[in-house]
């Protein structure tokens, strides 16, 4: 029974799509699944997908809650740059690395709470509210770095970006930890239900006694925090803070990952793990194109094709043509 339920849960379109993309990669590049052990860590294309996909996966973990409330956070790419700039500037100025990391995370959280304030308290439409920080954030990052790419060699920051733990890349370990933590946070408490309720009908949620403002502050704050974590990883990876390019356009990848993960932009039902699967699908395509020798320009076209496919699958027409049996979460009989 539980076995069958677990299996039927696995059989959702997102996981099938991931398997499909991986199989195509394998056909184009037969060594795709080869994994080797070297210098105390795993190497291989699949590991590469997990490593390179981590920043977008972490952004998606924060973004999915925002989108479930019928919002969107366009600022996450810029917040990544700000967080990286804060950490890099602080260690270069001689502060201890843990202080720099905590400061970067706090700045990310503050950026998220600012977005939450605009959306929840001032009632500004999320796309406009977060656009403010998307534009301003790059400027702030440039001001912090004074227009230079601030490079560093701090062992802790470099470890966050390029280190490994138990054979897995550090970025992957962090992403897995965040996935587990956030999933527990929303599903073992009532927060997940409240997010869905606010996304489906905010007026009704307020009348039913849900503190929707606080909840919105929480989801935007979490999104900012996730962006800061992703920003630290990207900065550690290149050993420097690049205010112009760190996290550039990644907000769009994160939104795409969430949508591929089956969460509607109209808010409501959401799944954190499936958003991460969405991020992995995107990265598996990127890596696949790279290793199979196609020019990277193909990336954008393939991505566009994927968006198109997802939209078609989610369109009302498709649900009419193909009767998709949705696994109803049933109570044990």
């Amino acid at each position, binding site marked *: 029974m539980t076995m069958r339920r677990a299996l039927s849960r696995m059989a959702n379109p997102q996981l099938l799509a991931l398997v499909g993309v991986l199989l195509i990669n394998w056909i184009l590049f037969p060594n795709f699944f080869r994994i080797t052990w070297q210098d105390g860590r795993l190497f291989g294309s699949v590991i590469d997908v997990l490593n390179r996909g981590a920043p977008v996966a972490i952004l998606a973990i924060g973004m999915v809650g925002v989108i479930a409330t019928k919002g969107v956070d366009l600022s996450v790419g810029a917040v990544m740059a700000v967080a990286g700039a804060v950490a890099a500037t602080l260690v270069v100025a001689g502060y201890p690395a843990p202080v720099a990391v905590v400061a970067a995370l706090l700045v990310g959280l503050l950026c998220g709470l600012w977005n939450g304030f605009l959306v929840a308290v001032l009632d500004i439409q999320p796309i406009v509210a977060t656009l403010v920080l998307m534009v301003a954030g790059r400027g702030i990052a440039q001001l912090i770095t004074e227009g230079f790419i601030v490079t560093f060699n701090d062992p802790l920051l470099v470890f966050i970006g390029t280190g490994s733990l138990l054979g897995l890349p550090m970025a992957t370990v962090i992403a897995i930890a965040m996935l587990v933590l956030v999933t527990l946070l929303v599903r073992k408490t*009532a927060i997940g239900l409240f997010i*869905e309720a606010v996304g489906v009908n905010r007026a009704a949620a307020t009348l039913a006694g849900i503190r929707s403002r606080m909840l919105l502050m929480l989801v935007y704050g979490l999104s900012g925090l996730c962006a800061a974590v992703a920003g630290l990883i990207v900065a550690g990876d290149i050993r420097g803070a690049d205010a112009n390019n760190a996290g550039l356009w990644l907000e769009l990848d994160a939104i795409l990952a969430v949508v591929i993960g089956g969460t509607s932009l109209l808010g409501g039902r959401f799944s954190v793990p499936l958003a991460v699967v969405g991020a992995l699908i995107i990265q598996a395509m990127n890596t696949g194109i790279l290793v199979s020798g196609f020019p990277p320009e193909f990336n954008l076209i393939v991505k566009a094709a994927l968006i198109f496919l997802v939209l078609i699958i989610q369109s009302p027409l498709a649900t009419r043509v193909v009767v998709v049996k949705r696994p109803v979460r049933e109570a044990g009989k």
Partner: protein
Amino acid sequence: MGGTGYALEARGVVKIFGNHVALDAVDFGLRAGEVHALLGENGAGKSTLIKILTGAYQPDGGEVLVDGQPVSLDTPQQAQALGIGTVYQEVNLLPNRSVAENLFLGHQPTWFGLTDRRKMERDSRAILKRYGLDIDPASELGAHSVAVQQIVAIARAVELSGKVLILDEPTASLDRNEVERLFEIIRDLKAHGLAIVFITHFLEQVFAVSDYVTVLRNGRLIDTRKLDDVTRTDVVRLMLGKDIAFSGATGLADARPTGEVLLDFTNFGRKRSVHPFNLTIHKGEVIGVAGLLGSGRTEMARIMFGADAADEGEVKIAGKPTSISRPTDAIAHGFGFCPEDRKAEGIFGDLSVRENIIIALQGKLGWFSALTRDEQMEIAGKFGEAMDIRAASLDMPVKLLSGGNQQKVILSRWLATDPAFLILDEPTRGIDVGAHAEIVRTINRLRDEGLALVVISSEIDEVVAYSSRIVVMRDRELVAELSGENISPGVIVQAIANHREGTPT
């Protein structure tokens, strides 16, 4: 076959959604020059049948015949081409376009490919005249009353189709005079040989204009009868499948044993919303709120619940001064509120029945004391059963339930929080007879259990039947408080009409 004389006929029509049979071999026949009322509780299959007759759904079995010829209606356009026109409860025309454009949208008279506006407006004027409307065809549709828009929608449907007219709850948002006007038009169209299907919740309207009545229940055809041969009680019995006693309009004249004072509102009000009012509410009593639409009834309910914050006056709960500036404050004190607009402010359409029932309790428990799935199932099951919610599963989205069942879900949501005080804004509007009876029964039961209730309703008979006291609202002001023998429709109507003349307080 032919020869049945039916302009439009459904024979043995079956419609299945998933594993739910929405229509089970239903026959329905409509002759030219007759008005045929289609009745049934919400969820009986009326809308499904209408959607099949108008080509919006395709039947899974049986056939649709027009003038005795089997037809396949794949789209609403095909139905229209065969002469079948429909007018829905919510007018679905374009409010920001002119009346003439709305009448002719899609087939405007043209002159070398350009819309011949002058001819269109001339023709419109002639059409509108036939419906007794003397309005400027060039005026914006949205500028007119709902009744006028409804008539324009009927005119459009008749002009486009001209054989069968389906009216789906056309009177839901009209006042008495407007309903009468609509009925004149219906009688006129009938005299001109149109076949008309009329769907409504109001029995007296059925008897006012219809010739035949067909009753559906749970997707089955119960009976088709000539209206001359049946009484109101017969029809209700057909709809419910059981006898229900209609209580007459007698108030609770006896001095009800009133419990201790629960709430005391003094000079409680909000600028531009509702004038300061005084109201004392005891445990175990129902305060009925009467008044016309826009009289401040809903505004009063909203500030009592903290949905809008009061900006003057004070409230005492069990003698203690308290501040209620948000719904969470009110809920913490055991308040509950069923809003007037169920869809916009009450239900979470995409969430399950279970989640809709437990959400307020969970809100009260907070973010970190989540109810487990099993606890949720138990609570939802318990209250769902007590309120007789008809849902195939507690895990189905609540938007798939009928209006009456959705209202029961919202009521269950508050009962699950073990409330001391409930505010119900139009709890019985737009729901079927069975759910209506269930909700009135629940109001009486809760009062007897010692809850305090404020119930807003436009149905004066209904308010009279269950209220211990009645307050009357007029022009955003509480103008009268009635009790004892003053609780009668006559006194209430008088108080609504003119509050300056000797209103007992």
